[in-house]
């Protein structure tokens, strides 16, 4: 059905539309390893000077490695928490005969679209009450809680595809409901869990507002906050530095994306927050 008209005009049109994006991402890379004469965007020399931040910590800022470690810890813990909590709750909503199950399910859907960010003052107060303000654990909990409804929703979807008969067989084989879930059902949704983990990891890695507000201090700073404060500091305007830190920051995202794009597109296509 595509054969009877030429495709190149479409490709050309799409290329033109995509040009700004390609340009931005291309220069994200180019500018970090080159210098260009003022007013020009054609590089005239290759340099690694913009990457000096990797081994030289500017005064008053935490070390990039510390921040990277925090980001890693933040994203890893958040995503882990999300998959654990979601794979448990998702199973309940998909399979178990609990009271008010419909209510829970509707609740998850409402929460999924919830303007959580607007509750941030109240969330701050909760964190403060439980003594987790300005700690990484606190933001991890909050971020996991915010990502969780989507996680539960997705996990429920994954569980829904597991045949009931497998569970019935497990029960007949003498396994408890818990064992059935743990030993028989969970292995069936492994790819789904991996996709959700990846998705939550990227969300955590990208998160800015929550750590900015709920964990601002230097020793718990994450990369997004670090980069944002670098940009906001009007004493050291250095686009090439911003971009180098930015590339350093976005590189893991791009790598994970290119390797696992199918997993991710499935999840994003299935409906995530935009």
């Amino acid at each position, binding site marked *: 059905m595509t054969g009877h008209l030429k495709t190149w005009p479409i490709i050309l049109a799409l290329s033109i539309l995509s040009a700004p994006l390609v340009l931005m*991402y291309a220069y*994200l890379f180019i500018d970090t390893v080159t210098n260009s004469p003022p007013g020009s965007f054609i590089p005239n020399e290759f340099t690694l000077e913009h990457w000096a931040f990797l081994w030289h910590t500017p005064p008053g800022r935490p070390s990039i490695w510390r921040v990277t470690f925090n980001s890693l810890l933040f994203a890893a813990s958040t995503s882990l928490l999300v998959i654990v909590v979601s794979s448990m709750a998702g199973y309940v909503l998909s399979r178990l*005969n609990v009271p008010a199950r419909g209510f829970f399910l509707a609740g998850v859907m409402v929460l999924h679209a919830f303007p959580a960010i607007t509750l*941030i003052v109240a969330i701050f107060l909760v964190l403060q009450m439980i003594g987790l303000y300005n700690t990484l654990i606190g933001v991890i909990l909050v971020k*996991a809680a915010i990502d969780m409804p989507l996680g539960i929703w997705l996990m429920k979807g994954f569980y829904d595809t597991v045949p*009931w008969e497998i569970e019935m067989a497990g029960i007949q084989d003498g396994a408890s409901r818990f064992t059935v879930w743990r030993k028989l059902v969970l292995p069936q949704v492994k790819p789904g869990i991996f996709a959700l983990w990846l998705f939550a990891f990227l969300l955590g*890695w990208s998160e*800015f507002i929550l750590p900015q507000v709920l964990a601002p201090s230097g020793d718990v700073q994450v990369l997004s906050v670090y980069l944002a404060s670098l940009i906001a500091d009007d004493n050291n305007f250095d686009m090439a530095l911003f971009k180098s830190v930015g590339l350093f920051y976005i590189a893991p995202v791009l790598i994970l994306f290119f390797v696992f794009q199918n997993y991710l597109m499935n999840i994003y*296509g299935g409906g995530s927050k935009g």
Partner: protein
Amino acid sequence: MSASRDIVESGPARIGTRAAPARPRFAWLNSSKGLGLVLIMPALLLVIAFFLAPVILTGVFAFTNMSTATGITGGAYQISPGALRVLTDRYGMGELAERLGQPTYVVDEQGLAALAEMEIDQDIIDGLKRRLGETFSSRRDFERVIRDLPTRPNTRTVKRISDAFSRSLANARFASAGALMSAAEAIDPELTDDEKAALREATYTGWSWTTDNFRRLITSPQTMRILFNTIFFVAATLLIFNTGFAMLLAIATHYIPDRPAGIFRIIWFLPRISPAVIYVLLWKWLAWDTGFLSAFLDNFGIRPRNWMLDSAFNAWVFVILINGFVGASMGMLIFASAIKAIPQSLFHAASVDGAYRWQQIRHIILPHLKWPILFVTCYQTLSLLTSIEQTLLSTDGGPGGATEIWSLAIYHTALNNYAGNLQYGYGAAMALVLVVIGIVLSLLYLRLFNYRALIIKPRIEH
């Protein structure tokens, strides 16, 4: 048949029954209810802590005048200049304000006794005794007197001594109304109940209940503007990018070979997976005075400028571009898979009919996209209503508040403004509006998308 029975009788494989497994040690592991409650508990706790409690708190905050000045966790009673002014202006108790608020230090027996109790050096007490009855209206003056005593006490002690002789409540801070009243009565034993009530209200530093936030929200000209901005932002982004452009991408990639289609999909996916901070930075690089756009257009004699904040119009263009590029990918994926699901035979039939591409699009693709479009619209309306990071990092609502949208205004009001006076109460009232809209919209969508179908009864009944 009887022959086979014989085989069985003699065969070795005849099986007797084996005992069923013992009951599991934890009964909940095996009941749907028990296991369900255990498995859902972590999620429930997170929901309670970070959704439910905050919503309730926000609801509570919305009916208070909470701000930086009042604090969140509660207040004290302070005879501050402001409080005295309120006492004078609002309650007409200027005289009382005068009596309580004028700093006075009186060298009296009561104070001397207090000193003795504090085990202050007897020389000092004696020295002060000599000035019995004297009154000072400034702490500094009185402390000078203390320091002039032959045995000069250290600063800390001076402070303690002067406290002991303070006979006014100026700037005194009390943790409870009771403490305030007993202190006030010590100075003026004849306080009437009216005066007490006025005093209590005027000196309270913490937040108090009020519906002013909503009155203010309704009457403020700012609200209308932000509301308009928000509606414009959501509608424009939704129409142009999240559905319109997404559809364009989905249809266009449908008509080109898989390889280039995949590449374009990846390109358009980049904005979504990129962390907001770096993604917006790239836009800034494009739009700043010294950025790409300025340098490029300079060649054509167009003066460099900050394209992003150049005018309200430009700012809107960029805010919508920035948010729209992120939003387009979701629609793109959903529409693309919907198009893929259209039976090929329909397309073939159409091409036999000699329908051109646009007719295919109009008569075959678009009708099939009705539900996906509705879904994306619903979904992204909520997403856009609550989106904040991209706008915060790019225009931050500027220039001149032109791109200030509701969620951002909440953030600015309640958490982040230049003057640092954070208005939690007012911000919470604004947040509550969004929360209510969010809940109403999502319940509406649940109805629309046949929520009942989602809750099929579990097939295992135990």
